[in-house]
């Protein structure tokens, strides 16, 4: 609790900025949705044939999962504010259109006829009778849209649009509960406050409510203005870094310490980074040294000439209970030890990320090529093994390799739980027994999960073998989890640039990047 309060007070400036950004994102998208949805709702209340179509489309948009919608928008709009606002706008659209439509439709036909019979024109019927009477229903739609948007806006952090999601996803990536709460609590509070505030408006008597609703709508652009695009102190090169990379001591802070690097950064989802650099949205990203997209997009890994990034050797981490239950399992899994070298892994990643082969295909092919493939024995399966993976291609491939290997060599039934959103999720799932094993990296285990003191870290000195021994020992005694022998490749962090640009600027190493940046600022 105290730690949480300390964290909040330390980060209060950032928290306030994120809250305002969050409000701004919500407000701006809501405003656009109103400007678009209200007229659309009015039009379809007049032409009922269009109604089914428009409501159908808006309804389908609503059901697209928010993260998928962002994914669709990246190729079209790139990263940053606009795709976030477009996504939020699309989500806000349905409640507004539908409630406008329903609100107008529900005005009694007798009243509409009375209004016409008095001699009102169609426009006068709309503005003097239908809209005022539909206003409470329309406003209820705005309220729904606002609350949805406050919630969905947390995802904006995935695509460098900021908001309270920065803390939430940063916290998940870094296994930092205080950070998660510092984002989640204000986001929840914001939703509750927005909802309660709008509900209060709704309870006002009609005449006053109309004034209040009008004021609210006028206020939206002001709210939207909270969204200030972060642009101060920009260097000529823009970096897009994953949350995890920015927060972790061995990530960006390590670079700052070792190289004195200082570059304008945007927070980006690690899966969107490659797309973003490929589309020239950013110039530097925090990639992984075995990522297949390096090859696909012709990207260059900058040489870590001062050894800032610690080693990240991958190995399956398994519950001890599972190993005891199925004694044959360990030897089967260790058939893989050392087989997946850096180049093998990059090739496998490339096939999935760029050639769009499925992880199953790639895994099968790898096992066949290495002679480890065995057809699944017929007959009933004697037990179940749950394999987890994080949410990137390499982990999907590893999970599939493990599945085919284990199913071929044992009588276990393997279930995969892929796409777990971060180290913390995988680790917690493993500890609670929701999964039996997942591939982890030595550096991650050390820095994210164990978080040892600086003295311990210094004593390990980024040594591959020392780190592995330390991590394996600590996991066994603290958590009852076993690290099996490393698979072979070192998937360390890497600073990545477009090869073309790196060549043009003469940057091959991180030191050269640092030199270029300091020079460019002057």
């Amino acid at each position, binding site marked *: 609790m105290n730690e949480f309060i300390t964290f909040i007070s330390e980060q209060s400036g950032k928290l306030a900025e994120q809250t305002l950004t969050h409000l701004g994102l919500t407000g701006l998208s809501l405003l656009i949705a109103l400007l678009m949805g209200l007229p659309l709702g009015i039009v379809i209340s007049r032409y009922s044939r269009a109604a089914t179509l428009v409501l159908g489309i808006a309804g389908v948009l609503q059901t697209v999962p928010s993260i998928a919608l962002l994914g669709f928008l990246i190729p079209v709009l790139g990263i940053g504010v606009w795709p976030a606002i477009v996504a939020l706008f699309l989500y806000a659209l349905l409640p507004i259109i539908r409630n406008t439509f329903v609100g107008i439709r529900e005005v009694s036909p*007798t*009243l509409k*006829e*009375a*209004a*016409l*019979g*008095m*001699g*009102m*024109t169609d426009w*006068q019927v709309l503005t*003097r*009778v239908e809209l*005022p*009477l539909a206003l409470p229903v329309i406003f209820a739609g705005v309220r729904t849209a606002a609350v949805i948007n406050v919630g969905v806006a947390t995802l904006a952090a995935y695509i460098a649009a900021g908001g309270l999601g920065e803390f939430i996803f940063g916290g998940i990536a870094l296994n930092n509960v205080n950070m998660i709460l510092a984002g989640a609590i204000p986001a929840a509070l914001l939703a509750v406050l927005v909802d309660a505030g709008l509900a209060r408006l709704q309870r006002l008597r*009609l*005449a006053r409510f109309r004034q209040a609703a009008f004021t609210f709508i006028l206020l939206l652009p002001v709210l939207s203005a909270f969204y200030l695009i972060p642009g101060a102190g920009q260097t000529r090169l823009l970096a897009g870094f994953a949350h995890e990379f920015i927060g972790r001591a061995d990530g960006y802070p390590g670079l700052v310490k070792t190289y004195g690097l200082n570059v304008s950064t945007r927070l980006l989802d690690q899966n969107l980074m490659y797309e973003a650099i490929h589309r020239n949205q950013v110039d530097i990203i925090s990639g992984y040294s075995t990522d297949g997209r390096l090859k696909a997009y012709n990207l260059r890994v900058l040489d870590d000439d001062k050894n800032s990034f610690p080693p990240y050797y991958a190995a399956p981490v398994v519950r001890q209970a599972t190993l005891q239950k199925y004694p044959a399992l360990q030897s089967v899994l260790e058939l893989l030890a050392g087989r997946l070298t850096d180049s093998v892994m990059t090739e496998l990643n490339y096939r999935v990320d760029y050639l769009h082969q499925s992880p199953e295909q790639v895994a099968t092919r790898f096992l066949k090529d290495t002679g480890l493939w065995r057809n699944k024995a017929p007959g009933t399966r004697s037990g179940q093994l749950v394999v987890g993976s994080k949410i990137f291609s390499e982990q999907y491939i590893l999970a599939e390799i493990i599945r085919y290997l284990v199913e071929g060599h044992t009588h276990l039934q393997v279930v995969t739980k892929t796409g777990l959103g971060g180290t913390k999720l995988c680790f917690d799932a493993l500890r609670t027994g929701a999964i039996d094993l997942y591939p982890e990296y030595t550096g991650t285990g050390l820095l994210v999960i164990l978080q040892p003191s600086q003295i311990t870290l210094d004593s390990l000195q980024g040594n591959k073998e020392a780190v592995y021994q330390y991590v394996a020992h600590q996991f066994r005694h603290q958590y009852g989890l076993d690290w099996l022998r490393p698979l072979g490749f070192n998937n360390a962090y890497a600073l990545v640039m477009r090869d073309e640009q790196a060549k043009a600027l003469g940057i091959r190493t991180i030191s050269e990047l640092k030199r270029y940046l300091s020079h460019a600022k002057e």
Partner: protein
Amino acid sequence: MLAVRNLTKWYPHHTAVDDVSFLVQEGETLVLLGTSGCGKTTTLKMINRLIEPTSGLIELNGTDIRRQPAHELRRSIGYVIQETGLFPHYTIAQNIAVVPQLLGWEAVRIRRRTDELLAMLHLPETSLRQYPDQLSGGQRQRVGLARALAADPPVVLMDEPLGALDPVTRAGIRREFRQLDALRRKTIVMVTHDVQEAFELGDRICLMDQGRIQQIGTPKELLLRPANNFVRRFFDDQRLTLQLQTVTLQDLLPLLATDDTKPPPTHLLPIETTLADALRATTEGPPAFVQSANGVVSLSGRKLLNAFGQWLQQPSF
């Protein structure tokens, strides 16, 4: 004068109004009477163009009503509808002012007219700032009428104006409406399915069935000289009540014996008093009399019913 000529309205699967023609003189009240679905409301709504006819012509003071935009036409025709159709988000004052405002009247003029209407329709001053749901049914009905009369239109259309009221309130409001000078001068077309209402408020009644006019004429004509079996059967249920309301002392006068009693002038009943009212007068108050050409006739229940019996025997009816 309102002239409806060969008005027809077809819908895809039925004919709602079939070749309907009638004239309404200035200051006259014509009641469109019939069961639901007979086409009376459709006919009414074609007069203010809420429904456009398939064929036929409507002329107001000799001009085709299609000559001007629909909304302008409607501003010159008062419209009273069932369940009042008052706007729930407008105060009573705003509701009454709807048409004057559409016509662009100045605020002072609207205010003066509103006060006039309040006094005329016995609505309390305090109701002006209230909303329709705060008023009683009878009051709302009066506001509905006030709204229709606000711009003093020469023609008023009424669609089941008292339909939403209970029978007691209804009879009361009906009596009030009948006594309103403002309404007597108007050309009124009123739709109802209530025979009593038609007989009380209509100068002439147009009885419709299946989109066609079955008979058009004064209440007495419909009652006593039905054009066909439909018309005859339509009034069967209430024939006696309607006759008592339709037959006047004037009709019975030839059948009443004159006597020499000198009546105090206060108890002299007017000659157009209906039989129903005359009977009420003889049973409730002091002895009543009526003036005939030959002298004064004293009235009693027995004498009146006797004369009524003979009158019904007359071969002409």
